[in-house]
């Protein structure tokens, strides 16, 4: 499958701050590149030795432009969040597996809606997934959490596909649990901080709800060779380390060890 991912110099189409410390960057991907929801871009950050991975928040097939949301969390992400129109940056993409959209819509057939659960910029890959699932006319309820009111992003986009519950300062999983009392989801997709994912995993496990999570780990090469971004995942032999960059970043919520 050579040519799946490419290393290229990407033109930055735009960069704008969408919340304090969070920048949305739009980049041009090479012709023929067609990323899927859940996949990520591995972006070179100037003098920093390692690249930084960012989930794709949206992709426009007609222009070949992909969007990411960058939280300035240090040297590397700080440099990347400073990118603006006219800049260019080295990118390796698209990488990783993806939310299995066909499998997800098959599992939803004739059943309840899909719920999206996120914390902070974890909403990014879910925006891309919502767009693909929503286009197929499945109901989408979103539960998105942020640490304060200024940090809220993505609401408008998600409202196109269904109801959106925004949690500010509290636990987004609390909002999801109370809504489950009325009608539980057919499936959940999630991305966010580890404590949120752990809580959600327990909630889903208790109620027998299937789902997929996009997880994060300190990453090296991004293509699966260096084995740095390990994550324990249950399998037939008990559990084993999988590569977040290659086998993930999307894992079944019942299998991934959080």
């Amino acid at each position: 499958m050579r040519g799946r991912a490419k290393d290229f110099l990407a033109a930055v189409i735009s960069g704008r701050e969408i919340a304090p410390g969070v920048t949305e960057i739009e980049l041009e991907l090479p012709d023929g590149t067609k990323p899927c929801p859940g996949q990520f871009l591995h972006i070179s950050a100037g003098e920093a030795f390692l690249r930084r991975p960012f989930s794709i928040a949206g992709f426009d097939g007609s222009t070949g432009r992909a969007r990411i949301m960058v939280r300035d969390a240090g040297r590397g992400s700080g440099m990347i969040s400073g990118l603006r129109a006219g800049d260019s940056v080295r990118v390796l993409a698209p990488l990783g597996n993806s939310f299995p959209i066909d499998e997800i819509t098959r599992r939803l057939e004739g059943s309840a809606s899909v719920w999206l659960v996120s914390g902070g910029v974890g909403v990014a890959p879910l925006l891309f997934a919502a767009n693909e699932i929503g286009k197929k006319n499945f109901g989408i309820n979103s539960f998105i959490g942020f640490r304060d009111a200024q940090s809220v992003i993505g609401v408008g986009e998600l409202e196109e596909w269904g109801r959106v519950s925004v949690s500010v300062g509290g636990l987004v999983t609390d909002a999801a649990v109370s809504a489950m009392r009325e009608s539980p989801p057919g499936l959940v997709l999630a991305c966010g901080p580890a404590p949120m994912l752990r809580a959600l995993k327990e909630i889903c496990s208790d109620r027998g709800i299937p789902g997929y999570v996009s997880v994060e780990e300190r990453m090296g090469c991004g293509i699966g060779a260096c084995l740095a971004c390990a994550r324990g995942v249950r399998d037939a032999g008990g559990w084993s380390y999988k590569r977040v960059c290659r086998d993930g970043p999307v894992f079944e919520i019942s299998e991934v060890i959080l």
Partner: protein
Amino acid sequence: MRTELCGIEMKNPFIAASGTFGFGREFDELYDISCWGAISVKGLTLHPRAGNPPARIAETASGMLNSIGLQNPGVGAFIRRELPWLADRGIPVIANVAGSSEEEYADAVRKLSDSPVSMIELNISCPNVKRGGIHFGTSPEAAREITARVRACCKRPLMVKLSPNVRDIAEIARAAEDAGADAISLINTITGMAIDTESRRPVLANITGGLSGPAIKPVALRMVWQAASAVKIPVVGMGGIMTGDDAAQFMIAGASAVMIGSANISDPMAGPRIIGEFERRVRELGVSDPRDLVGSLRTDGPPDDGQI
């Protein structure tokens, strides 16, 4: 650009360093990996190893720390599932071998000696596993013993990969040579650590890890020069090579071939890029054969401009 190492023909003196290149498959999706002179595969142990818990990597100034912990499928699975494909690529395959006991090293090497690998690289310098690895590489006696033990059952050229975490690298290099090593490679990573100030915790789950990248290049150059001056067998140099010019410096210091490691992690296209840069650099230097660079370090006085 052609060269040879312990009788193994290589199209150029560039070897992908163990642990940064997996078994080659992922990089072959980005470019044709037969551009390398040889490939040293991810460190293998007799039995599969799960590796260390995450986090396994941390960025540092001009480099990185890693503590993968020798995650690998074991020698048997490597020979069955990975080697046939890799051997088919028409480039020499170097099997990097680690272990926790002399028996484990010997058994692994015995199995690999009956497979189509071109060379064994004895890893006695892994800083990230509790038992074994570096333990065999930090005293001349231990290095001599494990090298001799493996030499006795190894039917391929044997290269010993040395640790920089030692008092006297020349002493260890000589010990490996005396015990029958056909070549030595150095340096493996330098033990280091990183701390997250907010949480006051180590960044790596294993607390310490191995430092690599341009940060260690001056140390690596010094050790390659010292080791090459101490032994007659070929030396394979590595440590922070990011450009063709860096590679030329290692050869001038005494390396017959070089390995590219962390650069592959920082830049997935580093291999073909550095090889191309080196070809151009060699031409600029007016050298007809890169082998003429090897050990050509001049220590006979100040640079030609006469300034002191």
